[in-house]
């Protein structure tokens, strides 16, 4: 079981990811509506893994990733990207994100990524 924090401004996406995770025995310890929310909740939620959306209001995923990596250099973050964001994902990986998944994704992809990074 992995403790996961989900960061996505779309409640719909949070719900889809959360269901995939919880149905497969993982625990969602926090849901965040944007990057700022994620940075604020990270210390207390203390997740083992973060699923981070990229395009969000208030604070984008890449900035939240940086802040989280500053707070916790061992943080494990997987970026959730859409098509057309190669450069941001590349930057995120260089910043320390462990992997990424591309929307639309299915349960198998999400679980595969968890298996690979944990």
């Amino acid at each position, binding site marked *: 079981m992995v403790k996961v924090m989900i960061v996505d401004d779309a409640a719909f996406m949070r719900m889809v990811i959360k269901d995939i995770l919880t149905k497969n025995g993982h625990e969602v310890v926090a849901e965040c509506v944007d990057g700022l929310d994620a940075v604020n909740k990270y210390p207390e939620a203390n997740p083992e893994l973060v699923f981070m959306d990229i395009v969000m209001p208030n604070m984008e995923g890449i900035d939240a990733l940086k802040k989280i990596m500053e707070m916790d250099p061992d943080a494990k973050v997987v970026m959730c990207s859409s*098509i057309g964001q190669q450069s941001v994902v590349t930057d995120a*990986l260089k*910043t320390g994100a462990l992997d990424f998944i591309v929307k639309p994704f299915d349960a198998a992809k999400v679980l595969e990524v968890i298996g690979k990074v944990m």
Partner: protein
Amino acid sequence: MDMSEYKEIFKAESDEHLQQLNDSLLGLEQNPNEMEYINTMFRSAHTLKGMSATMGFSTISELTHEMENLMDMVRKSQVDVSNELIDILFECLDTLEALVDTVDSDEKVDISHLQANMASAMEGTLCTQDIKETVDSSTNIIKNEIIKELPAENESETEINVELSDNEKRAVNDASAEGSRVISLKVILDESCVLKSARSTLVLINITKMGEIIKCEPSEAELEDEKFDLEFTVIFSTKSTDEEIVDTIKKISEVKDVIPTTVSESNGTEKKEQDKKEAETEESNSTNKTAVKRPDAVKSIQSVRVNIERLDNLMNLVGELIINKIRLNQLASDLKAKDLDESLANLDRLTNEIQTEVMESRMVPIDQIFSRFPRMVRDLAKSEGKQINLIIEGKEIELDRTVLDEIGDPLVHLLRNAVDHGIESQKERKELGKPVAGLVRLSASRQRNSVLIEVEDDGKGMDPDNLRDIAVKKGIISREEVDKLSDTEALNLIFMPGFSGAKVVTDISGRGVGMDAVKTKIEALGGSVKISSVQGQGSIMKLQLPLTVAIIQSLMVTVANETYAVPLGNVIRDVGIKASDIKTIEGKEVILLRGEVLPLLRLHNVLDCPTEQEEKENLIVVVVERMGSNIGLVVDELLGQQEVIIKSLDNKLLKNLKGFAGATILGDGSVALILDIATLI
């Protein structure tokens, strides 16, 4: 994965984003340089793309994908915000709205003309060719139609055919001198891999953890630009074994195969490679810094979505509870059970609180329907060549969900009329010395137990004489009768069935499209419509709406030993009159009350319940308001004011019954009908 269970939340959230897109686009039309609107639109389009792709709604994701591209170019000032662009985007929004609405059906919507329009909007730029290419290729990816030339089988078995420069050769030699091996690693990605460049970056990052990269083929820059097919080769020095390397890299998702080959070459130096790396990190740092930061604080929303049916059920249960409470109260007083008083008082208080809470939980801000009007008014004004300032006030006012659902169409009618027929053309306004831009004000305000919505315009107003003429011409009323109407009553003629809908109305006086429908709808909700108009200065429509439809305050009366409820919203007052004061004018009974002629309706006759009693001298009259004028209902007895729970009569048999708004259950368990004053003849 079965996605159907997410459909509801998908729709709800898509609607929010559509609204946001609409609002921002309207804002952008006013301030074409406001970055915040552009950014918001970009984000919303992007989010919609991700959501719809996840749901498998490919048309929506295609359309939003291109909108996102277009907004991205606007963001980068590669495309100007022109009127054409705004129009194209509005059209896209309309189509998106339709698409989201009809995701349940198999209906195919053709978006090719929108795509063509967006493409030509993007073409109006300097770097036409490049952009067009990226747009095309990414669209293809979404369509999953891209056909990749797969690497030929024998090709993957090739030895390294990578040319090394002198410097790189030196690096290879240095590595050997330090006891490292140099290997060439061919990495082949899955065909399904979508973000190849990012995937290759991940591979390179992992290789860096094991050793020092000497060369990439294609180059790192080309890899980042996705200028490669499915495979690339990395030459690096390492102390790890082949197995370790293959294991690590194969662990990365979407990596299909890894083929290591040992390299031995002559001279090299690592200096250049290091410089290059430093330059690279610097570069990535600087791009990172440019990311937009918005320090706004975020409120987390403490709410849950509840199906409206649940709330309806809850409201019904509260209704039942109140009925039982009333019954209990009555029993207690019948039995003179004093001991029950205190607990009954508590029960009273608690049911009241529950009722209030349930009612509050059904309340939604009126903005939910108001928010779509700026767009509508803009489109209308544009199509008629008018300039309109729409002022919206009180959008935070809350109304019962059921009421809100019902008043959308009536408000559309009223606003349409105000723009269509109320506001004069620009030319006329100039001649009249009015400001060229017409003013339409839509406001909501909370009264004690109701909400008042006003639609006001500063247009030409209505001419009572004109309305009289039209009414006569249409055979709604005789010339004799119409001349007796006061000006206010004449204005109310527009609510008569059959008055509106004809072109003549539009041409001559301007108003009247479906006004009877508006009135009927509002009154069915237990509300009322009032109209006032000053010629040359404009008109005001006032809609008075109840906060909730399920429970209403009523005046209880009896007629021929039956109890009826008269909605308190209609009641002006009750008076006692003497039978001898009743006069007859043209066969109709009236009475002179406070200087006004009040027509009388005897409920006995209307409801067809013959009274056994002798004609009494002292009669009780309930004065109610109907169609802008008052009438008096003659009843037998007043029982007092009471809250009643409306049980609707909307089954087949009773649906068309005029004169009744519903039924209710009284404290003693008996059923009383609720009178509908508007349709009571």
